[in-house]
């Protein structure tokens, strides 16, 4: 079995899709963690602004999660096609 034969096997695309989705989860975790860290620190500095900060935090977290889910969809396409 040459390397080419192994790489062209369909199962490699499944592997690639799954690894990609996992990496995207790591990225989302780091990103949203940083957003949460910034938000919580800001609330600690100024508790009266908690509501505004919370709204912005949720908005930004949805952006980051959207990007991570792009990668999940790409992984899903790699597995299903």
């Amino acid at each position, binding site marked *: 079995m040459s390397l080419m034969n192994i790489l062209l096997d369909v199962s490699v695309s499944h592997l690639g899709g799954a690894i990609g989705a996992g990496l995207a989860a790591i990225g989302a975790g780091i990103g949203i963690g940083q957003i949460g860290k910034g938000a919580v620190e800001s609330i600690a500095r100024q508790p009266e602004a908690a509501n505004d900060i919370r*709204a912005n935090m*949720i908005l930004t977290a949805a952006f980051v*999660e*959207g990007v991570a*889910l*792009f990668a*999940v*969809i790409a992984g899903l396409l790699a597995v299903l096609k």
Partner: protein
Amino acid sequence: MGEIRLKSLLVASLSLLLAFSSFPAMANEDHAGEKLDPAKVIMEHIQDAHDFHFFTLKKNDGTEFHATIPLPVIIYSQTKGKLTTFSSAKFEHGHAAYKGYKLEHGKIHSETENEVFYDLSMTKNVVQMLLALTILVVLMVGIANKYKKGQGVTSAPKGWQNAIEPVITFVRDEVAKPNLGKKYGKYLPYLLTVFFFILINNIFGLLPGSANVTGNIAFTIVLGVISFFVILFSTNKHFWGHIFWFPGVPTPVRIFIMLPVELLGVFTKPFALIVRLFANMVAGHIIILSFITLIFIFGSMSAVAGWGFSPLSVAFAVFIYMIEIMVAFIQAFIFTNLTAVFIGQAFEGSHDDHH
């Protein structure tokens, strides 16, 4: 006293959700004797179908009882030039062909060669969308009539006004006014419609046996395209000036980098709206279904493992259900908010202090 009430409410809702999510676990039997294919089961639940399938029971004599609501199948055949309508029960879950059409993997295929036909059936998604539409129209028109008569304006709001008014004022004050400034009145009807439509379909999609409407790329594409046109029709000269002649950068950068990037940006912003809503909803449903299917995967190994694993799996599924309810609200809010932000960016006009 308030804490005890909150605690009992929490226990009641949690146990109800637990009971609900054990529904798909209880009777999600597959065809007798066939090996369990988790991917196929999950895909079947996420995709559109021609009937509402709640559960299938295997009776003692080996036959199966399907608890389904069959939906009408409407096919317009261009080659034959005629419209065919019948109940999807005639397909007998893919085992029988009817009037020259058969059901394979949820899609209708024609038995005659090279037949061009259009499947206009009322599938699960269509029925659920119409249901959400009806609820939305009835609810909102009813509330509006009450406001017209003065209830909630000169006297205290009653009934559904109490539930809907904070949500509408939230969308108006947190989404429309900050982003759209003085012109918020023009766009508020569209923003409210999009918000409530996505919210109702998200919530419906969480019920076991319902259709996965917002997790359907076609649905989100249409919403995204409508938002794209709303944004496009609100653009002004200043907006296009910024795209084609981005201020504050050297000219080579302006032509070769900023122009393609900005032009692409006009399209990627609605595209992100589309994929964000679709991916969030589909991912949530897949996670819940995976946890429930995990029970059956373990069960196919040994009955004891299946039963033993089910409390853990149901607990995880309930936890994810809670998150999905939150995600349902958040995604509706995000779609509306970002549409408002993009519309605001479109007619922004010149800033007093340039970049």
